[in-house]
């Protein structure tokens, strides 16, 4: 017994050594500098083939293989930060946002961005001193979804053209009517996010939280504060459930229950709803205007090329992505709202509601007030000044307001103070 036990221990020790050798032997790493293959990191939860298709074409054309790595969204920023510290950034990437830690390692993409045939929307690129650091892969916009089945059942009409958009007051009246006639629970659920509260403020004529001349966030106007107060009042468990802004309940799931008349979210829900809602019909409706017609225009992934040893091939790949024909295919396959102007896109949805939704979003963005893009513009401006600001605190402060822990003025003050504290 004791002898065999001893032997077993030695076997364990040997196995340990072997496993260690195995795990350390597995370390990847080539970086020989020859541009036979480059890396492209991006993040998607869908099974989109857009980039993979482009990579195949790119390899056929340039003889350079693009290794596409899908990095989960949660932790992606951390991973990039640490990779920058370890000198192991990818050659190219589509990132959720730039980071002051590695922004100085980006290549200039101005040739691609300024190429007239590409017709890229210059307002949305990240540029500094004539150097283009990032080109968004796509644009996103906030918007309203309706439970069409409920509207039809109640016989209430809804607008389909942004030109005839509701005011929020009209919309809430219509939703009230639908709710009471069809006996469902709530008028509306509204995404708990800093980006989604912006259109509400803009629609009501407020300017929201903007940077002042001194590069810091200024105290918001009275209309903004009033809009925040009005928004909080809607969380009364009749119009809106308190649980979403108060306690982080998932509005997407609540809307899918079929017990909520409308949902204010954004274009990214279209693909999810196309597959994930089967118990009722849904439809996109124009964002209400009260009186300002605005949404929140934001950027999808930001495509960047890093200054690695394979910088030239990296730049070529990014340029390839944005060539008009290639980008058209990419946008169609991945369901992107395009960053390039004047494209005719046929999205691969089979559902009419989804196709209509995309058409509506394109129209909405054309007539949206310029303030709609200011949220992301402020972020870019701060970033280029070397400041990184996370506006997630807006939803925490709004949560306190909804929960009755503080009033609207205090909420606005806390938001400004919290944002400015990060600017330093």
């Amino acid at each position, binding site marked *: 017994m*004791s002898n065999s*036990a*001893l032997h077993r*221990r030695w076997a*364990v020790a040997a*196995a*340990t050594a072997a*496993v*260690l050798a*195995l*795990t*350390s032997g*597995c*370390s*990847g*790493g080539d970086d020989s500098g020859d541009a036979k293959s480059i890396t492209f990191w991006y*993040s*998607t*939860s*869908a*099974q989109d083939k857009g980039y993979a298709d482009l990579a195949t074409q790119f390899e056929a054309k340039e003889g350079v293989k693009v*290794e596409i*790595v*899908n*990095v*989960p*969204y*949660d*932790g992606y920023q*951390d*991973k990039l*930060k*640490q*990779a920058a*510290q*370890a000198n*192991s950034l*990818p050659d190219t990437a589509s990132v*959720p946002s730039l980071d002051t830690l590695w922004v100085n390692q980006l290549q200039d993409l101005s040739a691609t961005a300024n190429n007239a045939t590409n017709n890229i929307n210059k307002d949305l690129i990240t540029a500094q001193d004539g150097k283009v650091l990032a080109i968004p892969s796509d644009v996103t916009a906030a918007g309203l979804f309706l439970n069409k089945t409920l509207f039809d059942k109640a016989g209430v009409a809804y607008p389909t053209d942004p030109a005839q958009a509701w005011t929020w007051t009209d919309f809430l009246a219509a939703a009230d009517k639908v709710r009471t006639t069809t006996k469902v629970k709530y008028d509306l659920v509204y995404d708990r996010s800093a980006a989604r509260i912006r259109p509400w403020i803009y629609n009501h004529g407020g300017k929201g939280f903007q940077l002042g001349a001194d590069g810091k966030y200024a105290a918001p106007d009275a209309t903004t504060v009033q809009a925040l107060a009005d928004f909080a009042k809607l969380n009364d468990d009749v119009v809106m459930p308190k649980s979403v802004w108060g306690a982080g309940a998932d509005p*997407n*799931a*609540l809307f*899918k*229950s*079929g*017990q909520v008349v409308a949902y204010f*979210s*954004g274009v*990214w*829900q279209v*693909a*999810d709803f196309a*597959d*994930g*809602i*089967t*118990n009722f019909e849904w439809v996109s409706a124009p964002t209400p205007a009260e009186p300002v017609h605005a949404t929140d225009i934001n950027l999808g992934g930001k495509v960047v090329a890093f200054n690695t040893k394979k910088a030239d091939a990296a730049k070529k790949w990014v340029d390839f992505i944005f060539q008009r024909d290639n980008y058209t295919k990419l946008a169609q396959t991945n369901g992107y709202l395009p960053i390039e102007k004047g494209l005719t896109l046929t999205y691969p949805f089979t559902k009419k509601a989804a196709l209509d939704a995309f058409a509506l979003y394109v129209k909405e963005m054309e007539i949206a007030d310029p303030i709609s893009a200011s949220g992301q513009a402020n972020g870019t401006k701060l970033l280029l000044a070397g400041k990184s600001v996370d506006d997630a605190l807006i939803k925490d402060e709004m949560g306190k307001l909804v929960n009755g822990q503080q009033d609207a003025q205090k909420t606005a003050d806390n938001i400004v103070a919290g944002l400015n504290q990060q600017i330093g």
Partner: protein
Amino acid sequence: MAKPPALRRPGRGRKGDVPRRIGASSIMWLLAVVYGFPGLWFVLSSFKPAGDLFSYPLTLFPKKWTVSGYAQAWTQFDVARYFLNTLIVASAATLLTVVASALTGYALAKYQNWWLKAFAVCILATTMLPSETILAPLFVVVRNLGLYNSLSGVVVPAVITATGTFMFRQFFVTVPNDLLEQARIDGSGELSTFVRIMLPLARPIILTLAIFSFQWRWNDYLWPLIILNDPKQFTLQIGVASIVGAQNVNWSVLLGASVLSMLPLIGIYLVFQKYVMNADLNAGLKD
């Protein structure tokens, strides 16, 4: 080796047993229902089509059974490769953790030293900082040691655990010192006593810690994501996390992938737990 399990009283089969059996079984099953219910929703929901997950009125059972969530999870990432990587990481870490914890726990229990006591408190301290606080500094260390972008970079920092160390310490405290003295008198070396006498005694602890360690490493997410760059080395949880998007979660796929990623853990648990249950522990402890 045919001795009865620890709690089996000799009175088995006597008259008072029947009510006792009914009592114990019904309490256990009541608890099982309470504990199992949330998990039941989870498993059943993984067979629901996406459109029915949040429908109202609520249903526990799928109206229409489907495995589309599983099928999509299976094609979402390279399951076989990620699975293998995770297996390597979890097995290696578990082996090392058990060895390191057993040695440290033994030392803490059987040697009286002021610096060992201090070390015990220090090991506890490793569980006291929020992971984020230590993340960036730990990364700097791992990079400086040249372990970045390798599976060993995932394994090695995880070897020391307070839980494991203290499990062994508390166990060895209960082992009578006479046993140790006897071995010393017999001229057995310290290490050999440990390997020949102590480790076999500690088998339930070894197996229990193995279950723990395997689960921890199997479900590790952020650290492997940061350390590994090559998708050929990615672990299972990185694949599962890629289902959770910035704005949307595809719940039906996530539920399917989660059920799949749990199956190996349940298998390991059942096998190891069987040995814990069957271990003949009293052999060395009886005077």
